[in-house]
């Protein structure tokens, strides 16, 4: 099982890192440039907004979307194939616990990778946003932006990404892949899997934000 987990971590975590950082760079740069062009605010305000938005919402949402698009589609296809061809039955008949061997690594890996990818996303978006905003490329000045990050928010973002990714994959395994019985069901299982993952992930994030707003109806206190 450890071997499968490491392999899944590689596919989900390592191979997705580049895509996440590219998206983060585009999101960070786009956000800063749009805000600077449309609002009469200073660089420090723009960067604080960027840090808050990335850490609280966009980091989680973008990372989950990358996991859904890249990893869940692969996991859905692979497991639907294993089910349709009868390979799952064979493993079970050989005495292998298919939940532990096939399913668990594919739930744990997106969760662990998600937490790390979220970090990559937030830090890359802030770094690129800072570089684009002040355009001085003064490293020390750029690094100041990371001070505006709240460690609790980062921890919450990592936890949310991990939990939501795991729950969404479990949902897909439970409802999309089990229905696959014939070869034509495989692409359907994959596309349904991705769609269901995105919906579940966004619903979970929405529920979290609603709960957060309900717990703190007045919003954050002014500094």
């Amino acid at each position, binding site marked *: 099982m450890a071997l499968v987990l490491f392999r899944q971590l590689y596919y989900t975590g390592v191979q997705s890192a580049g895509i996440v950082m590219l998206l983060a760079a585009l999101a960070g740069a786009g956000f800063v440039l749009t805000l600077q062009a449309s609002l009469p605010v200073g660089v420090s305000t723009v960067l604080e907004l960027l840090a808050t938005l990335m850490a609280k919402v966009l980091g989680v949402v973008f990372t989950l979307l990358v996991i859904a698009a890249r990893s869940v589609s692969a996991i859905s296809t692979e497991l639907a194939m294993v089910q349709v061809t009868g390979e799952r039955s064979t493993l*079970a008949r050989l005495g292998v616990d298919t939940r532990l061997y096939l399913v668990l690594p594919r739930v744990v890996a997106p969760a662990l990778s998600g937490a790390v990818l979220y970090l990559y996303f937030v830090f890359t978006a802030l770094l690129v946003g800072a570089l684009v905003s002040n355009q001085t490329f003064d490293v020390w000045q750029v690094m100041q932006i990371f001070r505006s990050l709240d460690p609790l928010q980062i921890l919450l973002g990592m936890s949310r990404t991990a939990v939501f990714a795991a729950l969404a994959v479990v949902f897909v395994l439970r409802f999309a892949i089990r229905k696959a019985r014939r070869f034509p069901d495989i692409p359907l299982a994959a596309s349904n899997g991705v769609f269901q993952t995105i919906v579940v992930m966004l619903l979970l994030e929405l529920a979290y934000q609603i709960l957060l707003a309900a717990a703190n109806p007045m919003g954050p206190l002014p500094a």
Partner: protein
Amino acid sequence: MPRFAGGWTPAQVAERARLVLPLPGHGMAFERQLDHLCAAWNAQPFRTAYLDASAPFLENVSILENIWVPLAWRRSIGWAEVVRRAGRYRDLFGWSERDLRHLLASRPGDLPPAVLACAVLLRAVLMEPEWLLIEPGWFARPLLGPEHIVALLERALGCSRWLLLWPQGQEPLPPEVGWHTIQLEADA
């Protein structure tokens, strides 16, 4: 231990070590029967190997990993140990060291059916089973020819108790084996 109908004791069953268990149903119903039976056998303390014919291997990993996974699961045998033990059985299949290394490194889709059948057999041999469950496809749609399969099975796994899971009413039984038909109790 699954209970045998007709008052057979495990010792008597062991004497009649070439057993046929007729299973009712066909298609999906038959497959479910196989699932239940294998689950019951795997829950026992004795070692069981299974000869699957329809989808014997995971397609996206090597034969070595396919052989290693059930061995690691059931017998905690490491990867290197599997390779070492597989070397002992080269002569059985008439392979050279190079053939064996090529087989273990290959993906199932890259190998012809006859070689895959030998790989399934190798996996069963490495389990060192006390019971060998045999899917009907091994004889109904022979990959190597029934006589060749029986000879190979006798050489590789002659000391195990064979339990051929055969669709009820399907004749004839595989040749050149003194099969004894048995029944299981309903709750076995």
